[in-house]
């Protein structure tokens, strides 16, 4: 087929998409003019309710990667994908709320590079700022590629034109203030996405003959009934031995990758810091964990349905080398094309466009902040007026958008984007998490160890990646990424400890608020905490969430 994926949108569909963006733009304009106290209240977040920040917290992550990547994973690996939520995200979010948030909220660190600079000085700061900036451009490329995929599917333009058009649209979204109301938009976006994906899942299930029909069809498909159970996920991890597979998933995916992602990702941590009290900040990721554990049912399941319902995808799964013109990344779009009637189609397109655009805009703007303040101001041109750095930031925005077109082409080369993304996380997040957690709890860790650990951790992950690519290590699936992340974590810790032993630490008084043992208890706790009812206290809530996620793991094992 020449045009394997065209969405047949009608006037109604476009109208629904336009309605969404009209609302977003209106909020953006209102936000810039500060037309209302109450809007100001919602933006500055002097006292945002925890359910708002909790939803914003997961919505900031429910972007391209989650929707396309996890449905692609569902199509390729089946139920094993659930690990990303039930072993990965949810425990990590609970850990963030219970253990790390008191510390972030108390120390008022606003970004990862800022923490690095205050804890370890300029060496680790420079390394981290550069790797963060690179990671943001690479991830922006993924979002842009997916945005372009939709433009391509809607209008039938070639990929490169779609890329340029999508990039231009994101630039205007940032310029028109869509980002200034980020938390607000994220909450809105969450409901539009659910409004699109829930009917998609239900209709899809209806088409395959209900849950029983899905089970029968998956059992008969090339993946077989192994794809109906989440453990031991030997396909996903690429380990043949089920025990090692489980170890790889719990340690690599669960501990290093997910904890690394959720606890050091400040785009998300900032959502929690917009609350009025320590308890509300800690509750943010914990409240977010409840909807998060049910997200896979409307993301992974549609992917699995697509793999047994959409003819092209069935052919592709039977023989990935066949010229079907589709990949796993197309799973959810193919299902949307096949089962959603005009009307719901528009809701789905609005939700997907919104998610990818907001995701890319967030990448670009955090790149912009780090580039102009952490890199340019710190290391290139110091002491210029504020206007100068704003101008630098504007050029950085344009530059990053253009660069994202390039990185989008890299992303387009992967048939399952999760493989690519997990690889990137292994390079950047795993060593960062190791350095973060060691630096937070071990006051003896020295500034030299800070940057040396990061560099060697990333180097270890890249080495594993190259060995997997060249076939020295034989790990299909996403096991390569898990091993790379594990290696990065271990090497980072070992190098940091060894280097710390031979170099001089920072004096203890400079570490107040940055290292656990040097931070006074009052700074870490909420004096009002005992007045809260149980359903607003972080720890009991986290306990309930943990029990639920364990139950889900058991039910769908």
């Amino acid at each position, binding site marked *: 087929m020449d045009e394997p994926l065209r969405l047949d949108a009608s006037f*109604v569909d476009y*109208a*629904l998409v336009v*309605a*969404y963006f009209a*609302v977003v733009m209106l*909020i953006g304009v*209102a936000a810039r003019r500060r037309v*209302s*106290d*109450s*809007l100001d*209240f*919602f933006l500055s977040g*002097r006292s945002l*309710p925890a359910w*708002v920040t909790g939803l914003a917290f997961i919505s900031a992550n429910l972007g391209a990667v989650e929707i396309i990547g996890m449905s692609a994973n569902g199509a390729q690996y089946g139920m094993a994908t659930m690990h990303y939520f039930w072993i990965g995200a949810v425990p990590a979010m609970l850990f963030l709320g219970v253990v790390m948030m008191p510390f972030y909220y108390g120390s008022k660190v606003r970004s990862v590079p800022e923490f690095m600079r205050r804890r370890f000085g300029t060496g680790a700061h420079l390394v981290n700022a550069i790797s963060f900036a690179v990671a943001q451009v690479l991830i922006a490329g993924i979002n842009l590629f997916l945005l372009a995929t939709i433009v391509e599917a809607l209008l039938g333009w070639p990929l490169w034109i779609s890329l340029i058009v999508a990039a231009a649209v994101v630039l205007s979204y940032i310029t028109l203030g869509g980002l200034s109301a980020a938390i*607000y938009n994220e*909450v*809105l976006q969450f*409901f*539009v996405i659910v*409004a699109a994906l829930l*009917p998609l899942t239900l*209709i899809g299930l*209806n*088409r395959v003959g209900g849950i029983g029909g899905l089970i029968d069809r998956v059992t008969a498909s090339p993946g077989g009934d192994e794809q109906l159970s989440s453990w031991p996920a030997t396909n996903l991890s690429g380990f043949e031995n089920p025990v090692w597979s489980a170890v790889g998933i719990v340690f690599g995916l669960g501990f290093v990758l997910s904890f690394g992602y959720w606890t050091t990702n400040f785009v998300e941590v900032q959502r929690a810091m917009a609350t009025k009290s320590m308890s509300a900040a800690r509750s943010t990721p914990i409240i977010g964990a409840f909807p998060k554990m049910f997200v896979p049912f409307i993301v992974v399941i549609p992917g699995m349905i697509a793999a047994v319902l959409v003819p092209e995808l069935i052919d592709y799964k039977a023989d990935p080398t066949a010229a079907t013109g589709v990949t796993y990344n197309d799973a959810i779009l193919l299902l949307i094309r*096949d*089962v*959603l*009637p*005009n*009307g*719901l189609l528009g*809701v789905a397109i609005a939700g997907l466009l919104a998610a990818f655009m907001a995701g890319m805009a967030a990448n670009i703007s955090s790149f912009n902040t780090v580039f102009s303040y952490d890199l340019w101001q710190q290391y290139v041109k110091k002491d210029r007026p504020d206007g100068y750095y704003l101008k630098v930031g504007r050029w950085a925005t344009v530059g990053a958008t253009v660069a994202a077109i390039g990185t989008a082409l890299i992303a387009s080369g992967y048939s399952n984007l999760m493989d690519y993304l997990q690889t990137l996380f292994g390079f950047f997040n795993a060593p960062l998490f190791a350095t973060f957690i060691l630096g937070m709890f071990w006051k003896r860790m020295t500034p030299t160890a800070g940057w040396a650990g990061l560099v060697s951790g990333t180097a270890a992950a890249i080495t594993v990646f190259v060995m997997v690519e060249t076939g020295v290590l034989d790990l299909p699936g996403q096991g390569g990424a898990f091993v790379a992340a594990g290696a990065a974590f271990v090497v980072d810790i070992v190098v940091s400890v060894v280097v710390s032993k031979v170099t001089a630490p920072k004096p203890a008084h400079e570490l107040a608020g940055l290292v656990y043992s040097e931070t006074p208890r009052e700074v870490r706790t909420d004096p009002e905490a005992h007045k809260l009812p149980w359903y607003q206290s972080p720890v009991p809530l986290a306990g309930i969430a943990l029990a639920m996620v364990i139950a889900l793991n058991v039910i769908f094992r």
Partner: protein
Amino acid sequence: MSSGKRQQQQKAGAFDVRNVIAELIGFYGVVLVVVGLLDDDESLAKTGGIDANLWAGIGMIAVAVAFALWSRLRPTVVDPPREDEQPTG
């Protein structure tokens, strides 16, 4: 609590995110119900025989009403009024 008294604190009103959710999802719901009522056999074939637009539309209207009620019954209070100012709103 203070609900019986005159309004003393400014409510988030139209910019309360719950109202925006109610308006947008409610609008989607109404459009989908109309589209659903006009749907032809081709749409029904896609969904496997259910009028998905109609039912999704009804669901969205229900969600919108729930959010509107929630925001009406438990309004978000913006700021306690300053002593030297008369509350507007």
